[in-house]
């Protein structure tokens, strides 16, 4: 059932070759949707495009074990070729590295890239081409699966290079490397940096920028759902107009992650309204249990449907590479949402029924409600005899209303008074004889009933 909600195939076009491996592995391990052999084959096909010889070899072997005989490949030759290339570029890059790692040089480097370049050129004979080798070497290492090294090289390249376009792709490379290494802290920084660059750069066509943003949205998922601060960042970032537009235009499925992030994010409840609007408008393009859950709850107020969708959500989340980690969290928060909405609308609630709505037993439900009352300061009481929850009427009292209405009056009058005084002073200065004509406005003394 959940196969239709699998987004892997939709997302792959927007990911880097190497980033796809973890996704496929996840599917393979959990034995989801596809037969393991097809997945293995897919991974093998992918790996052929990389330079990860050992990995190819391994997959080749696994495929054979699985009973599929892939086309024979000239592994030995390729390995030699790749190793040669690796050595060559390493040697070239080493020259640059030697210079850079020299403590004297490190001390001499400044903020200004051009100046640095000049300095290196004058003192060490480094040219732009030589710096380019760093980029190439990094790229090659990445292709070989040596992500750590690649990240390193690309970092150095970015420090020295003045080429914007290559700098951008180096940053992409660095982000990918950090993601694959699992170095979330650094990756998070890279994401922020990348975002700034994408927003600032003037691309030749809006389409190009859209493409970059789409990629960015996909890649950043890796970071955001692994970094502790990630979920805040997802909400912050994805709800920005530019990115919401990107989601709507080119990749509506990202809505799932945005929704999940908003739901699990306790502090951002006011964002929910915005999210609901977006979801409502994308329903014709994209829907899955997660967005449907929000829709049922906040658009149709259909608690039964919400309950049903929540159960479906559980399954979908379990099968999603990115969201599997927050599944528990999501369910908790979703229940919280349901009960909160429920309480706001209802005055008297049957505990048994509420527990059922939340997919819980009666005892659990009662506990849950007690916790809810305690945590969120909902003004409610449980009637044990009737087994109901009574919500207290929380309409604003008249006194409250009057206080609200007259709150600003004294301040405003004060402002008025000072401005009149100022004006008078100015008038006095300007023309002494006009002193006897103050403005008609008399300062209003604030009235508080």
């Amino acid at each position, binding site marked *: 059932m959940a196969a239709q909600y699998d987004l892997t195939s939709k997302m792959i076009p927007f990911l880097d070759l190497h980033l796809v491996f973890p996704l496929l592995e996840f599917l393979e391990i959990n034995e989801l949707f596809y037969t393991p052999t097809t997945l293995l084959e897919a991974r093998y096909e992918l790996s052929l495009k990389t330079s990860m010889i050992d990995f190819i070899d391994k997959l080749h072997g696994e495929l054979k074990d699985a009973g599929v005989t892939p086309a024979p490949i000239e592994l030995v030759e390729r390995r030699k070729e790749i190793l040669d290339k690796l050595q060559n570029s390493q040697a070239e890059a080493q020259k640059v590295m030697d210079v850079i790692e020299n403590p004297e040089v490190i001390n001499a480097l400044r903020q200004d890239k051009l100046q640095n370049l000049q300095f290196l050129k004058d003192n060490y004979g480094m040219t732009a081409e030589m710096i380019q080798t760093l980029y190439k070497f990094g790229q090659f290492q990445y292709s070989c699966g040596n992500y750590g090294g690649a990240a390193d090289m690309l970092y150095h390249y970015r420090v020295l290079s003045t080429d914007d376009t290559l700098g951008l792709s180096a940053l992409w490379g660095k982000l990918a490397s950090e993601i694959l290494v699992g170095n979330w802290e650094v990756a998070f920084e890279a994401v922020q940096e990348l975002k700034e660059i994408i927003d600032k750069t003037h691309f030749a066509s809006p389409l190009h920028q859209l493409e970059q943003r789409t990629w960015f949205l996909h890649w950043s998922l890796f970071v955001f759902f692994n970094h502790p601060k990630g979920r805040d960042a997802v909400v912050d970032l994805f709800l920005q107009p530019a990115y919401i537009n990107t989601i709507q235009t080119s990749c509506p499925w990202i809505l799932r992650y945005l929704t999940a992030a908003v739901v699990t994010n306790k502090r951002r409840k006011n964002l929910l309204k915005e999210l609901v609007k977006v979801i409502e408008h994308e329903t014709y393009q994209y829907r899955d249990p997660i967005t449907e859950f929000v829709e049922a709850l906040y658009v*149709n107020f259909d608690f039964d449907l919400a309950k049903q969708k929540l159960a479906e959500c559980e399954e979908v989340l379990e099968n999603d590479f990115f969201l599997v980690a927050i599944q528990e969290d999501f369910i908790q928060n979703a229940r919280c949402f349901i009960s909160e909405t429920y309480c706001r609308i209802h005055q*008297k609630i049957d505990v048994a029924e509420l527990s059922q709505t939340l997919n819980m037993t009666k005892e659990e439900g009662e506990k849950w409600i007690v916790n809810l009352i305690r945590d969120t300061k909902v003004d409610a009481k449980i009637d044990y005899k009737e087994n109901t929850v009574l919500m207290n009427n929380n309409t604003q009292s008249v006194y409250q209303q009057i206080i609200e209405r007259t709150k600003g009056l004294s301040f405003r009058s004060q402002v008025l008074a000072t*401005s009149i005084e100022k004006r008078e002073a100015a008038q006095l200065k300007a023309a002494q004889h006009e002193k006897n004509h103050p403005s008609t406005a008399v300062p209003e003394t604030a009235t508080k009933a």
Partner: protein
Amino acid sequence: MSRFFRAGESDSDESDSDYSDELTHSESEDHSDSDSDNSSSDDDDTAKKTGGRGRLFEGSMSDSDSEDDTVRVVRSAKDKRFEEIEQAVTSMINGQKINDWVSAQNEFDRANKGLQKAAGIIAQSGVPKFYIRAVADLEKSIQAALEKEKSSSKKMNASNAKALNSMKQKVKKNNRLYEKEIQDYEKDPENYVEEEVVEEKPKAKKAKKVVVADSEDDSDVEAADDGFTPVGAGGKSVEFNQENIYKKLKEVADARGKKNTNREDQVRILERLLVVANSPYQKIRVLLALTSAQFDFAIGASGYMSIPLWKNADKYLNSLLTLLEANPDYIIKEDVPEVEETDKDLVPQNGEPVYIQGSLVAFIDRLDDEFTKSLQNIDPHTTDYVDRLKDEVGLYSVIVRSQAYFTRIHLTDSISRTTMRRLEHLYFKPDIVIVAVENATAALLPASVARPHQDSSVLIHDLCVFLYKNATSLLRTRSMLCHIYHHALHNRFFVARDMLLMSHLQETIHQADVTTQILHNRAMVQLGLCAFREGMIKEAQTCLQDISGTGRVKELLAQGLSPQRYGAATPEQEKLERQRQLPFHMHINLELLECVYLTCSMLLEIPNMAQAGSNPDGRKKVISKPFRRMLDYNSRQVFSGPPENTRDHIMGAAKSLSNGEWQKSIELINAIKIWELMPEAMKIKEMLGHKIQEEGLRTYLFANASHYSSVGLDQLAKMFDLPLASVISIVSKMVWNEELSASIDQVSNVVVLHHVEPSKVQSLALAFAEKAAGFVEGNEKLLELKTPQQAERPKKGANANKEQATGKQQQQRTMGPRGGRAGRNQFNNGLGNSVRGGRK
């Protein structure tokens, strides 16, 4: 002498004067008979020619006119006029007796002139009998004279013979007008004059035409060709041959646009040339000239090219395209250097194509424009219109054909222009029609040129995508609008909406030209109708608001002229507006549009009004002004009869909806006949019924909340015939949105309504607080007024509330945000953006 006549005199343009001469003749006999214009223009050529010649004599006669007035006797106007005529007639009879045709002709003309002067009198009392007798006799004696002339050996002198000849023609033509009278006379020549019975209808309709062609002899034809010098004495077949074809062409081309050029002759020459021409090059050249000659004809009073001429042009254009298809080495281009020796047959040599100067795309444009113009001018409720519309297939096939041709020779600009034309012929049509047109076109054209498209959406998509990629920005905009219209027509609301938003058309449409703005308005309206069909009431209302809400729908959609208030428009503006009108078959049904708009407004406005209740702030929030106005007007009436038109029905439905009588409301809405024009009318009625139930429930709750302390959900469901679940959903939504201060008691399944009934002191306190706030605000405003330089500060407090309020209102009216690449979120402001397509 009529003013027409004078105008004809001074106008030196040959064909025009021919025409006005016709007028003169009929005018001279009769002012009131309007038929004569049309019928006389149907006369064949010879009659016209001789008429034309006769005019010269008439002109020369006008000098001697004044002599008669020497004797000043007071007589009645009638007598005076008739006496004049009688005098002339008598001298004419004398002249013809002594065989002096010159003087007879002069007198005849004078008599006619007199008759013309007396037109007013004649209209009352009829043509004088003596005149009829004289002209009838005259015809006979002319015939006799001619017979005698032929048989006798002695020739009469030249001027006399000429006068006789022209008399013959003139009299024949003249007498046709009085056919009936003459017949009467001939039945009883003796008593005719004596009969003093005044005929009520002096003018008989000219039922039949007398065939004039019988007596046409050589000299007549010569005379007909008089204005055309190049024709020599030799026969015509020798005249046009291979050798002089280019010379003739050049002559025709040179004569074009000059004074005294007879276009008909030009066309005739060209037609003969076409017969003679045998090489493709010659044919193409002649056809090019011929097609443009067709377009050169004066438009005349009807305001459009006459249909036979249009068909000719269509025919020639088609044969030109056939020729070009058959001879791919000949290419017509606009920017070809003028070839020096135009009198040689150019043949493509070793693969080098021959370039000929000309602009096919201009022909296509003109042909299409003329077609539209004719449709604008023909009354759409006649069979003429339908007949004319049948020509569209032909036109469409020419467009498709030329598009294929341009594609072959890679003229991008021309391709886009023709593609656009093609698109504009298609976008508003339903699928079946498009497929039919495509099939018919494919049948007309060779298979190599056009293949029929079976899927209209694919066809439209292809055309549009081509234009997006290749065309200029104006054409891109137009094609985008056509595409949106097409999507909306096919109920693809979201696709259409996204296209509209992503293209950011609404931001720039105000700078576009008026016709594009009209197209935009059309697309918006169609989008609104689409939303309505899909059951998205709010969206539909927003889309239609700015167009239907203005009361200038006709003008905004170019579907008829709206009545001008205070004569605001100058004639030029009105003329321009007239030119922009869409042909009838492209119209969007305005009554249906109004009906949809009002229904949407009702569904939104009635709950809104109920919610506002007596609260003055809420009252201000108006969703649809026209609807409120109508409702107010309707409820002010003392007696309201049963609903007659659409509007009455909707107003009635609105009233019963606000009273909670949803069944009656549904009945009234369903009784509207115009829904039948919608596809799947039943489904729409069903949808409307459902919406009315829901809105009825909401209205009921808003209106009656204060009278209940709790309402059973089951009861509500029963009352409004809705499932319990949807009642709960609706109530929950109202509670959640804080529209209704209530909450649901789940255990006993009731809605508990919270009343905040303030005590006397409390309400006074509230009022006091309100007053105080008002005071402060007033003071702030005053200060702001007095000190303009400090205007910013007080604003903060005073206007913040207002801004908030408007913001909220806007939010409620939105269709919700959707971004485009950068700011699809402006949809809320945007969708309502209609454009004043009217005068600029």
